[in-house]
C-alpha cells in the first residue's frame, strides 16, 4: 500500500499543470465597428462595405470620404495554463441576423455579411463558418478577421445616426 501511495504521489507530481490551472476559455471580441459612413438617402438606397474596406453605394449620396471601414473581430483561445503542447483548434462562428432598425422615419436593415475568412467570402445570417487555429503552442492563440455587410436604408423623413448590432457567436468544436 505504501508503494501504491508513493506511486500515486509521483503520478500526481508528473501530471501537467492543466488540471490545476484555470479552465480554457474561448472568446470573441469586437475590435472595430462596421462603419458605413455618412450619406444622404432620397427615398431608399444601400451601401455595401466589403471586408477589405471596399465601398459600393446605390441610391445614396456620400457626404464625406474616409469614414467607412469593415468590422473586425478577434477570436481568442486561452488554454488556461502555460502548457506548450501543440493544439489545433476548430471553432464554429455564426453571425446571426441583425435586427431591423426603425428610427425616426428611417428603416435600416443589415444583411449580406462578408468576411475575409478562408472559404467564407459571403455569409448568410445563421450560417456556420469554421475557423481553424492550427499549431497553437502558446497559452493564448487568436485570429482576427474582418466583416463587411450590406446596409439598406429606407428614408421616409429626416435623418439620424444608426447603430445596428452584429450578433456573433463562437463555439469550440475540437482541440487536438
Amino acid at each position, binding site marked *: 500500500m505504501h508503494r501504491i501511495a508513493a506511486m500515486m504521489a509521483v503520478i500526481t507530481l508528473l*501530471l501537467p499543470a492543466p488540471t490545476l490551472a484555470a479552465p480554457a476559455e474561448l472568446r470573441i471580441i469586437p475590435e472595430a465597428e462596421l462603419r458605413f459612413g455618412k450619406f444622404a438617402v432620397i427615398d431608399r438606397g444601400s451601401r455595401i462595405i466589403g471586408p477589405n474596406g471596399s465601398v459600393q453605394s446605390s441610391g445614396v449620396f456620400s457626404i464625406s470620404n474616409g469614414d467607412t471601414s469593415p468590422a473586425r473581430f478577434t477570436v481568442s483561445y486561452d488554454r488556461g495554463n502555460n502548457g506548450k503542447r501543440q493544439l489545433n483548434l476548430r471553432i464554429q462562428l455564426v453571425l446571426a441576423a*441583425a435586427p431591423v432598425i426603425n428610427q425616426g422615419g428611417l428603416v435600416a436593415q443589415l444583411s449580406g455579411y462578408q468576411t475575409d475568412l478562408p472559404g467564407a467570402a459571403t455569409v448568410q445570417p445563421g450560417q456556420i463558418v469554421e475557423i481553424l487555429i492550427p499549431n497553437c503552442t502558446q497559452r493564448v492563440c487568436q485570429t482576427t478577421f474582418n466583416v463587411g455587410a450590406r446596409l439598406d*436604408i429606407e*428614408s421616409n423623413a429626416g*435623418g439620424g445616426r444608426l447603430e445596428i448590432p452584429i*450578433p*456573433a457567436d463562437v463555439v469550440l468544436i475540437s482541440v487536438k
Partner: protein
Amino acid sequence: MADTIHRNALFVLVGIAALIASTPALSQNQGSTTFGASRAEIISPISVTALDDLTFGGIAVTSNQGGSVKVLPGAGPAEYSGAAAPACTGTGGCTTNPALFHVRGERNRSYVIAVPAVIYAQATNGTNRELPVSDLTSKSLNLPGASFRGFLNGAGQDEVRIGGTLAIPAGTPPGSYRAEISLVVSYD
C-alpha cells in the same frame, strides 16, 4: 503476486492520469457571444422649393435709351437706372420682390447656394426677344450676412431670397418677360 497487483494498480493509475492530462480542453463545452456594432449616419437630403418669383414689376423705358432694374435679395426698394422707371399701370403693377425659396434638410447644417451668372427672360407673347437678368445674389434668413450660403435651423429649414438685375435694352417692345432661376443648394 503482491508485486503483480501493484503493477496493475500502477498501470491503471497511469492510464487515468494520461487521460486526464491529454484532454483538458475537450472536457469543456466552450463558446462565446458578442455583439459587434455597425454604424451609419443618414443625412436628410437637402431640398428647395420655389415659393415666390423674382418680380421686376412694370418698367418703362424710352425708345432710344435702355435701362436696368435691380431688385435686392433683402429689404429695400428696387433701384432703377438709365431710362428705366417704374410703370405702375398694366397687369403686373410696379411691385418688385425677390424670389423666395424654402430650403429643407439636415438640422443645424450650413449649405451653399449656386445660381447661374446670367439667365434670360423670354417674352411670353412668343417673340424671340429676351432680357438678361444678371448679378443674382442671395440672402438666407438664418445666415443673412453670407452671400450664397445658408443655414438650416433646428427644424432643418431656411428661406432664401434671390435678387438680380434686369437689363432692358433700348427699343425693347412692351410685353411680359419670364425667366426661370435654377437654384442649386448643397451641403458644404
